[in-house]
């Protein structure tokens, strides 16, 4: 098999061939049993897979698909959708505001010049949480 013939055979697997190449391929297949076997091997596998999946696709189209879809596109938003959209809008703003406030408080607490007990950890400092430990809770003054 020449390099050109090999190239035509390989291209036939990738995309439709031009008229002249298709005629050349026909000649190649007629003249070489090995080429014909390889060509048919690939084509049969593809044809069988295509046939089954295309048939599955056609059968899967549900009745009145286009009608249901266009109805869905033209349907005005229901009051329920309006309400959930409004909730989402409100939640996003509240969440952003809460984050900003938290960030402000943390920053203020971290840089505040107030004296802090030695035992206080950074989280307690950041959120201005009173220090908690058994000693402090029971107000013990153990040696």
């Amino acid at each position, binding site marked *: 098999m020449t390099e050109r013939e090999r190239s035509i055979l390989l291209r036939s697997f*990738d*995309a*439709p061939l031009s008229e002249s190449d298709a005629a050349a391929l026909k000649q190649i297949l007629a003249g070489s049993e090995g080429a014909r*076997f390889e060509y*048919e*091997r*690939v084509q*049969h*596998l*593809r044809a*069988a*897979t*295509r046939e*089954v*999946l*295309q*048939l*599955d*696709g*056609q*059968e*899967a*189209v*549900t009745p009145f*698909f*286009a*009608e*249901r*879809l*266009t109805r*869905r*596109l*033209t349907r005005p938003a229901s009051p329920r959708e309006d309400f959930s959209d409004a909730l989402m809008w409100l939640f996003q703003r509240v969440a952003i505001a809460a984050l900003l406030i938290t960030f402000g408080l943390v920053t203020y607490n971290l840089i505040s010049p107030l004296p802090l007990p030695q035992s206080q950890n950074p989280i307690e400092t950041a959120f201005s949480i009173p220090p908690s430990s058994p000693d402090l809770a029971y107000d013990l003054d153990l040696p």
Partner: protein
Amino acid sequence: MQKSAPPPDDELVARARKGDVAAFRLLVERYEGRVFTTVVGMLGRGDEVDDVAQETFIRFYETLERFRGEASVGTYLTRIAMNLSLNAIKRRKRWTARFLSTEFIIGTRHEAAVDSIPGAEQSEQRERIRKAVDTLEPKLRAVVVLRMVDEYSTRETADILGVPLGTVLSRLSRAQAKLRKVLGPYYNESNAPI
């Protein structure tokens, strides 16, 4: 009376952009088969298919303004359908990992498919091919669906998936080898399927 020629896609797209839902519906009717074929090829038959197909057309409707016609409507829709199918597979994997075994899901899908096909022999053969396609990982299945089922060229398949040409060729080669391996005992390669 002579029947008038159906309006071309670009005319329907232009009308749909102006809010003509009837024009959009014609596009849906024209391409629903192709979209369903892509989605079924990727997901197998099941309830999810209708949802993904609907979502494909809704995405297209919502992005009509951005559609510049560089690709054909069919290719554009196939790209959306493919991306949504791959997302659905990811969701399904997460859900399966949490609640069910993969064998259960595949088994259920196959039973549903076989039941609906008349002719036991034919359905058996179709079932074998479906199972073979199901054994492919999604990346390989995508190439099989686009290249072998939707009949896009290798270059077009690469464009739709956004991967280099060489990647498509290597995935196609791996996919075909796997299909042959699974179908081997049942498939007479020198003739038609047994």
